[in-house]
């Protein structure tokens, strides 16, 4: 779990605090979006997330949770509008997981040789999840969110988070041939 309390947890962010919120969270929101949509699209969508947050900050309900969950909720909604781009990314990763341009460094090639065996399957499996399952799974995998935070970010009941996550992970493990494994 990443720290989320500094940036105004439990209070409507005051106007002057927004610069802090941006500085504190922009990189991780960018990383989450880049993971789902690719780095080029992420630049715009990550900035959009903060513009929307700023415009809608009056609607931020501290009773529903932390600023961090709120930002990821906005980012996830924006990602959902780009579903075709997201699926395209996973399919491209599935097709070309190992087809890299390695800029000439043998070490990089060698590390890929061993690391990439399962990537095509994993990328295909991600593309085949429902959007709801993917939202929950990727908030855990990329943002290290707890069930509680996901429930806040997506505005869905706690129990639904658990069932979606376990369904998603079951599908992923089955695609990877890891049915037996449980958790880290």
């Amino acid at each position, binding site marked *: 779990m990443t720290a989320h309390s500094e940036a105004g947890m439990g209070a409507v962010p005051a106007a002057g605090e927004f610069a802090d919120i941006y500085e504190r969270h922009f990189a991780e929101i960018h990383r989450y979006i880049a993971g789902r949509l690719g780095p080029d699209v992420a*630049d715009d969508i990550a900035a959009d997330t903060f513009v929307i947050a*700023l415009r809608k900050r009056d609607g931020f309900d501290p009773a529903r949770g932390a600023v961090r969950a709120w930002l990821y909720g906005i980012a996830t909604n924006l990602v959902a509008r780009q579903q075709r781009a997201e699926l395209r990314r996973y399919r491209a990763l599935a097709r070309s997981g190992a087809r890299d341009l390695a800029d000439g460094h043998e070490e*990089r090639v060698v590390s890929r040789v*061993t690391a990439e*065996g399962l990537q095509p*399957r*994993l990328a295909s499996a991600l593309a*085949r999840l429902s959007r709801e399952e993917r939202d929950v799974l990727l908030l855990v*995998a*990329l943002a290290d969110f707890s069930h509680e935070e996901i429930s806040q970010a997506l505005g869905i009941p706690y129990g639904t988070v658990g069932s979606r996550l376990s369904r998603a992970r079951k599908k992923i493990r089955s695609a990877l041939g890891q049915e037996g494994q449980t958790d880290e």
Partner: protein
Amino acid sequence: MNDLSMIRVLLDEAPPSAEVIAEGRRRIAACATEPGRPAALRGVASPATRPTTGFRSARGGGFRHRSARGFRHRTARRVAVGTAAAGAAAALAFVTLVPHGTSAARPGHRQADELPGVPARGFLLTMAVKAAAASPSTGRWYCQEMEEGGRELVGADDTTLQAPWDQGPPASLAGYQYALFSKGMTQSCFEPPTKGAPYGTVEGVTQRLGAQPASPADAAAWRRAGSPMSWIAWFDRTVRITMAPGRRYLAGPRNLTGARPNYATLPTSPARLRAYILAHEAELGNAGTQSEVLYDDAFTFMNAQSPPAVRAAAYRVLASVPGIRMEPNVQDPAGQSGTALWLRQTGPALGLTIVDPATSTPLCVEDVAQQRIPAIHVALGTVLDYTLFVSSGWTNTPRSG
């Protein structure tokens, strides 16, 4: 590594550059000074220098070193004949896919709009018979050599442009000057699993073979631009595409980490092979409609690593897929004549698989333009990229190293 950490590795991207962060700050500041916004928000970062609309990312210099993964995701379906599944080549095929050099239609290579073709079912069944009659290949290593080529568009400042057939949102072609074709090659050898290497081992050699102007007209434009010998890649400004061939890189031998289909035990009945493909769609790595998945995966099994009976079954699976067309007497980039097969698709590119009708062996896969793009001198049938299967087979003496 569990499933969550594998997802993190798969989707990991470089952090935003300082420029991107600064641009976001400017947008926030501009937004904060919109009419009706509290004046206190003006304290946010630097003053607005741009309107909030029309934001373009300021993706600048050289922070994507690590992110070579995004290399070249062509939009067209790419059939991985014996590559993805062979493991060896797939794992080593980092070679720059940069483009080769002929332009538009080659002799004997009909343009795409003239490629109505005919239904391929009868041809595919004939190929199944030829495949079944081939002698099985044996040996300790499965080795193959591939040559890849692709068309690159050069824009201003000797920097390439994202092409309409590349993956990703459409990008501007402003500043286009001329086209290059650049090539690379990969030799790789795969050794099946042993006790010490449960997923097998792989080793190989890769080399960039250099880039050249794609046509005489492109060569003239290249000379007008000052005859540069290297270009900056649009997808990663740290990457240089060069006219001169690069050095040979040796990789491996290394243990593979993921299981692959065992070619020796794949079903030899078409119905069972079809069921196997559909049941293992995710792990075989191709997605799309059922026809697309069957088409891509059947060709994946169409390499010399499979026993003849499996290749024959794969051709019969293809014969059952509706919509596969064929055109005889098409030349591949090495000048070999073959029969082109394709499954109709939308988008700027059409993926062709060219097979040798005498032996049923795949010679090449290539993407050709099926839309004319006059601004960048792409005609119907222009070769956008290709992978040539130079050689493949089981051997007792790995050739790389």
